[in-house]
């Protein structure tokens, strides 16, 4: 009997110790969060339920009027459906080429193939350069250099530029996002791959496993957690991704480059939002968050459940 009681007491003591430890760990970050996030942004969220009264100069509560306007706008605006379509395409392309290539490039580097050190540095370089500089270099190249070359090779074609022509604009923006975005993903994947136990890999090689097979059966499952994390971050980003539209086009983004993120926050990003518009923007942000959060959590659960496990 005393043995069980003793064990229980040790168990309780450990649970108590664990709880103290837990609280100690999260105390400061949580306090910072409460002050610098909740307190500071509280009003911004409440704004969604208010309306600016120009006569008195204050915001007053009006219930869900702004939310109704958000839904009406979404239902009636043609630009919304174009934006949603673009957001989804951007996501799909980003997944296929961005994530796909990142995984393959990381694998190349992890395998210490020819020139891997050099490639690793080069892949990371665009992340170091400020986005303003990258955009400028890219823009002049695609809309001044390349058209000249193209018009020389195909005389009489009068191609203006990749960002200027209607048919190539959106694709060029997507290309830019992928082209300059390998840095952090590759870094994280390579780091994760380097953590794979060498003995497993050697065993597989002894069994005659080829490069591709190794990737599918060993490397990818072993880094699946990292992959899941970045995957759900991407999903969370569907509704906020602006594919650098503002950096390239400024105030006049052509409609076929609109994404949902840009559509919703164009006025905020360009700094033209008026006082009376903040409640509307706040409501729109809330609606979007409330819709996307559960999706992200569900996707995460599914991935963990059905994805390859480290076993």
């Amino acid at each position, binding site marked *: 009997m005393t043995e069980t009681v003793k064990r229980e007491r040790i168990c309780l003591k450990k649970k108590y110790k664990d709880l103290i430890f837990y609280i100690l760990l999260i105390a400061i970050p949580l306090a910072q969060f409460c002050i610098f996030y909740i307190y500071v942004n509280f009003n911004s969220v409440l704004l969604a339920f208010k309306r600016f009264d*120009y006569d008195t100069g204050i915001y007053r509560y009006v219930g869900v009027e702004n939310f109704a306007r958000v839904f009406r706008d979404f239902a009636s605006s043609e630009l919304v459906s174009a934006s949603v379509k673009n957001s989804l395409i951007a996501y799909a392309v980003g997944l296929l080429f961005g994530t796909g290539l990142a995984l393959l490039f990381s694998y190349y580097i992890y395998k210490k193939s020819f020139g891997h050190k050099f490639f690793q540095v080069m892949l990371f370089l665009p992340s170091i350069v400020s986005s303003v500089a990258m955009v400028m270099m890219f823009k002049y190249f695609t809309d001044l250099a390349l058209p000249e070359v193209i018009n020389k090779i195909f005389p009489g074609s009068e191609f203006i530029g990749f960002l200027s022509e*209607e048919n190539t604009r959106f694709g060029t923006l997507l290309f830019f996002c992928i082209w300059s975005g390998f840095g952090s993903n590759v870094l994280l994947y390579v780091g994760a791959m380097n953590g794979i136990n060498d003995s497993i890999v050697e065993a597989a090689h002894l069994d005659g496993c080829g490069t591709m097979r190794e990737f599918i059966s060993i490397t990818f499952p072993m880094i699946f957690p990292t992959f899941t994390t970045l995957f759900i971050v991407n999903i969370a980003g569907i509704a906020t991704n602006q594919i650098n539209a503002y950096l390239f086009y400024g105030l006049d983004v052509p409609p076929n480059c609109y994404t949902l993120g840009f559509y919703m926050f164009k006025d905020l990003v360009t*700094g033209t939002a008026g006082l009376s518009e903040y409640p509307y923007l706040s409501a729109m942000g809330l609606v979007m968050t409330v819709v996307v959060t559960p999706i992200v959590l569900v996707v995460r659960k599914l991935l963990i459940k059905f994805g390859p496990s480290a076993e």
Partner: protein
Amino acid sequence: MKVKRLLAVLMCCLIACTMVACGGGTGDDPIDPTKTQLYISNYDGGFGDEWLRALADRFEELHKDDRLEEGKTGIQVRLVNAKKQGNQILDEMLTSTAEVFFTEGLPYRDGALQDYFLDITDAVTTPLTEYGETDSIESKMTVQQQNWFKVNGRYYAIPHYEGYYGMFYDIDTFDTKNLFMTDAGTFTNYAGRGKGADGVAGTYDDGLPVNMTQFFKLLDEMKRQGMDAIGWPGANPRYMSDMLVNYSAAYEGYAQTMLNYTFKGSAENLITLSGSTVVEDAEALPINESNGYELRRQAGKYYALEFAERIIDGNYYSSGSFNQTSDYLDSQTKYLTSAFDNRMKEIGILIDGTWWENEASAIFESMAKRYPGSGKGERRFGIMPFPMPDGEESRSQSSAVVEHLMSAAFINKNIADYKKDLAIDFIRFCATDESLVEFTKITSAPKAFQYDLTDELSELTYFGQQVWNFKQNSQVVYKFSDTPLYYMNTNYFQNNNWESGIQAVPSVALEEGMSAEDYFKGMYSTAQTSWSNLIQ
């Protein structure tokens, strides 16, 4: 590795540098500890800061014996150049210690209601007697300006400068290439110019196309001579659309254009399209806040779109006009150098704003080093009148123009008490006739007030004189209004007034193949649907 060690040492040196301020000097002049400082923030865009320096010097001279602080005599004015627009200006107020601000694109009402600006009602309404004038600042403003700048009966800012979009050309180029027109509509040089649309010799439209047919005849002639007829910045398509707004204003006239801002009155030129035939409304339509979208059917807007369509479909534009790398400075550079450099097709007409000559000062400087006779003020630029549809040539007499810059001056509310009177005095000082004239002399651009230039007119550049005369003969419509629908949705009305379906910029839509008719119809239906979404 030795290299690594070296770099590590270098890094330590750099961190050590933060302990010592080894930065550059302290700007133009050092702080004078014997004087009180007044800090002025200036939007250093197309108008520069030379005018402000001149103003500040005179102000310092006037106040050199003032004692505002213990042990200090006199004032030192220091300039802070800040290129902020829109809400950035208001954000800057949170951290800036500048006292007086000269801005562009100011969200005035929002700022006033959030208590950023000092109340300067007395300063604006009291006559400027201490400067020998009987007028007050308020009396130099138009009624539209007064209504806007008065928020709940109080003034918190005053207008600053103004500018309008339009088409500009080089008179000497037209002369040598015989691009002017006679009364009969044939081509000639400067000496043989016809009277223009107003039928009066000696006015700015002499020798220029009187209607659409003549205008496109001119463009065809330019094309025949191997020129690109018109150029505008591809990266700033708004330049083209804002020019169309002025085309529409020129067609409609002052009263009808004002309707777009006041929503009070009767719309007389509304049309519908049956195919591409214009059908005028049988009766004038009373306009109010709930049916304001009907104004999208103004005939002027349709003709403006047609005008743009003909330019674009006829391929009369330069290569930079739709290129994303060509911003307004690049467009000016191309226009200016095309006349001197054989590597480019010469551009005949530039679409820009009336401030463009000043804005291009640095470009003129670079050019003067290479091409003689290309410096600022050495070339004579003129304003091209908007060609009215055939048969309606007389409309060009109405001369209404829409002002786009929304520039204003105000005082930061959170400044030291002892400086408030000084700042107020500066504001009054900058609105005296002498100061207004000095601004125009230096920048060759008008201030957004009513004042006179007599002898000083000849001191402006040729183009500056053109702009001045243009302003004297036009009625300026400002893009603001004290009608609640307008000021509660300022962003919509200032930036999205020509939305059509998913397009917001007519030139881009037209270039992509949309017709002017479809765009016009789309403008109406889009406005109709989104009207209920405006804050009312």
